[in-house]
C-alpha cells in the first residue's frame, strides 16, 4: 500500500511531462484535421474549438480537471473518448505481451538452468547464442523475418491482420483475452483462429524477452549452486533433482522474478513496434497512429496508462517476491 502511495509523485511527473511533450512536438493538430485545402479561418476555428489557442497553464489546468473526472479527452482520429479506445484495446496488448512473456519464460528458464547445471555443454552454448541473438536483433526485424518465413515462404501461419482472421468473430467478452474467452465459451474454432494469429507476434516478443531472462537465470543459478547451503544439501545426499529444483532453483528465482518485471516493461515498449508490424489492434499501434496524426489526447492517455501499468507491475513483483522469500516478508 505504501509502495502504491510512493509511486504517486512519479505519476504526477508523467502527467506533466506528457502534457508538455505533446504540446512542444512538431506538427499542428488543427492544421492536420482541417485538411490540406482548409482556409486559415477554419484552421483558427478548429484551434479555438480544441482550446489550443489558450495559454499553456490554462490548457494544463483544464486537462488535469478532466483527468480527475476520469476523462482522458477525445481522440480526433477515432472520434471516440480516449478512455473507451484504450479500454477496448488494452486487452489485446496485454494478451500479446503476457503470451510473449510466457513463451520466453518457458524456454529461457529451463535453458538457463540447464546451462548453469551443465557448464560448457550444448545447452550452455545454445544459451550463449540465444542471449547474443536476443540482444542484437531488433523486434521489428524479427517480426518481419517471422512473417516472411512463416507466412510468405512456408504459408504455415495466416496473414498478419490482427487478432482473428476475417471469418471468425470475437468471443463473448469476459476477460478480453481471446484465448481465455474462447476457451471459456468452448468455441474451439475461434480459439484456434486466435492462437494462429497471436503465435507469430508473441514469438517475436518472446525472442526479445528470452535473452535477459536466460542470462539472469543462468547467472543466478550458478551463484546459488556455489552457495554453502547447496554443499550442505549435497553432503546430506539429497538427490540431484531435489538439489537443483527444490534447493537451487527456488533460491535462484528471486533475482529472476525481479528481472521479469523489468523485461515485462521492456515488452510493453517493444509492443508498439510489434503491433504495427502485425496490425495488432492494441494500445501501442493506437498511440503510434495518434502520434502521426498529432492527436495529443490519445498519446497522453497511452503514456499515462503505461505509467499506471508500470506501477501495478512493480507492486505485483513485490508481492511475488514476498511470497517466494520469507526474509522479504519480515523486513
Amino acid at each position: 500500500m505504501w509502495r502504491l502511495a510512493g509511486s504517486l509523485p512519479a505519476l504526477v511527473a508523467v502527467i506533466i511531462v506528457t502534457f508538455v511533450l505533446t504540446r512542444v512536438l512538431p506538427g499542428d493538430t488543427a492544421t492536420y484535421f482541417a485538411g490540406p485545402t482548409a482556409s486559415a479561418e477554419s484552421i483558427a476555428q478548429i484551434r479555438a474549438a480544441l482550446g489550443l489557442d489558450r495559454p499553456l497553464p490554462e490548457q494544463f489546468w483544464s486537462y488535469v480537471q478532466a483527468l480527475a473526472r476520469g476523462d482522458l479527452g477525445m481522440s480526433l482520429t477515432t472520434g471516440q473518448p480516449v478512455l473507451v479506445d484504450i479500454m477496448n484495446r488494452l486487452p489485446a496488448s496485454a494478451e500479446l505481451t503476457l503470451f510473449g512473456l510466457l513463451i520466453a519464460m518457458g524456454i529461457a528458464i529451463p535453458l538457463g538452468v540447464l546451462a548453469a547445471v551443465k557448464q560448457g555443454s550444448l545447452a550452455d552454448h545454445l544459451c550463449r547464442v540465444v542471449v547474443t541473438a536476443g540482444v542484437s536483433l531488433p523486434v521489428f526485424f524479427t517480426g518481419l523475418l517471422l512473417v516472411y518465413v512463416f507466412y510468405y515462404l512456408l504459408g504455415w501461419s495466416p496473414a498478419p491482420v490482427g487478432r482473428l482472421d476475417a471469418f471468425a468473430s470475437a468471443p463473448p467478452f469476459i476477460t478480453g483475452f481471446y484465448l481465455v474467452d474462447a476457451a471459456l465459451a468452448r468455441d474451439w474454432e475461434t480459439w484456434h483462429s486466435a492462437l494462429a494469429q497471436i503465435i507469430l507476434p508473441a514469438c517475436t516478443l518472446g525472442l526479445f524477452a528470452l535473452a535477459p531472462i536466460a542470462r539472469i537465470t543462468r547467472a543466478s543459478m550458478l551463484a546459488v549452486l556455489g552457495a554453502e547451503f547447496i554443499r550442505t544439501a549435497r553432503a546430506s545426499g539429497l538427490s540431484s533433482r531435489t538439489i537443483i529444483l527444490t534447493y537451487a532453483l527456488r533460491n535462484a528465482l528471486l533475482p529472476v522474478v525481479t528481472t521479469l518485471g523489468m523485461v515485462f516493461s521492456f515488452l510493453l515498449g517493444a509492443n508498439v513496434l510489434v503491433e504495427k508490424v502485425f496490425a495488432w489492434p492494441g494500445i501501442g499501434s493506437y498511440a503510434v497512429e495518434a502520434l502521426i496524426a498529432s492527436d495529443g489526447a490519445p498519446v497522453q492517455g497511452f503514456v499515462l496508462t503505461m505509467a499506471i501499468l508500470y506501477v501495478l507491475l512493480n507492486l505485483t513483483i513485490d508481492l511475488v517476491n514476498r511470497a517466494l522469500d520469507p526474509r522479504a516478508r519480515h523486513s
Partner: protein
Amino acid sequence: MSAVLDVSDFSVEFRTRSGIVRALDRVAFTVGRGETMALVGESGSGKSVTAYALLGLLDAAGKITQGRAVLEGVDLTAASPGELARIRGKRAAMIFQNPRAALNPIRPIGQQIADVLRRHAGLSKRDAMAGAIDMLRQVGIPDPARRASAYPFELSGGMCQRVMIAIAVATRPALLIADEPTTGLDVTTQAVVMDIVAKLASETGMATILITHDLALAAERSARIAVMHAGHIVEDAATKTLLANPRHPYTRRLLAATPTAAGALSALRSIPGNLPDLRRDDLPPCRFAARCDRRLPGCDAGLVWRDIAPAQRIACWNPT
C-alpha cells in the same frame, strides 16, 4: 574397537590453470566406533579437502589419485556417484562452519531435516516432519513443533548449528565429520554445540572426525589427534601422548604456538616460514623440511610413516 572408517594411502590432486596442486599425499588414519578423532593443522593443510574427498564432494578439478577409504566395508573411492549420494547423509554426514549460510535460507528448518529423512529413511511427508521435530528436540531446540516452521534467518547462529547437527544425524550415520563446527560461535555456544555432538555420538556409537585449527578444542574434545601439514599427516597419536610428548618437530612447534591458560602470551612462538607451494613439481619428500630446524641430509631421500611408540605414528627421520 572396530574401525568405522579406514583410510589408507589416500591422495588427492587438483588440476588448475597454474599447475597440479598435490593437496593430499598418502593420508592414512582409522576412526573406530564411538571414537572422536581430531584433524588439526593450519589453514590450507588439507583438513577440509580430506573430508570433501571422502564424501565425494570435491569440485570437478579435484581427483582422488590413489588410496582407499573404507566406510563400514564399502570403499568410498570405488563407489559410483549414485552410491556415494546414498551413503552421504545416511552413513556418513557432515556439519560445517558458518551454519547460517549452510542452511537453505528460504526453506523452513523442519522441512530441511524432513528432506533428509524422506530421502534416506523413505518416510512419508508426515512421518518425516514428525521425525524432524523429534530431531529438533534431541538437539535441544525449545518448542520444536513451532520452531520447525522457522527460517534460518529467524534463529541465532548457535540454533542454526543445532539444526545443522539435526540434519546430519537424523539418519543415525556411522560417521560424522564436523568441519570447524564452532568457528564463529561464541564460547558458551561452542561448548553447548560440542556437548550435543558428544552426547549423540555416545548414544549411537557414531564415530566423529573433528576438523579444527583450534588445538585446545581438539585436546578437550577428542581421544586422538592427527596433525596435518601441507597435505601430510605428520603425527597421529592419542591426545594425551601428543600433548605431553609430541615427537614431530611440526607438532612441537604447533603446541608452542598455542596459547594456554597458564602461559604468558609472550611465551608463544610462531612457526617460521609458510606452507610450501603445493603446485611445485620438485616438492621435497618431507614438506616441512624447509621450515624444520632438525633437518638431516637423509630427509631429502624419502618420507616414511612409522610407529615410534604404541599408538603414536609420525612422519619424521629425526623426531624430537
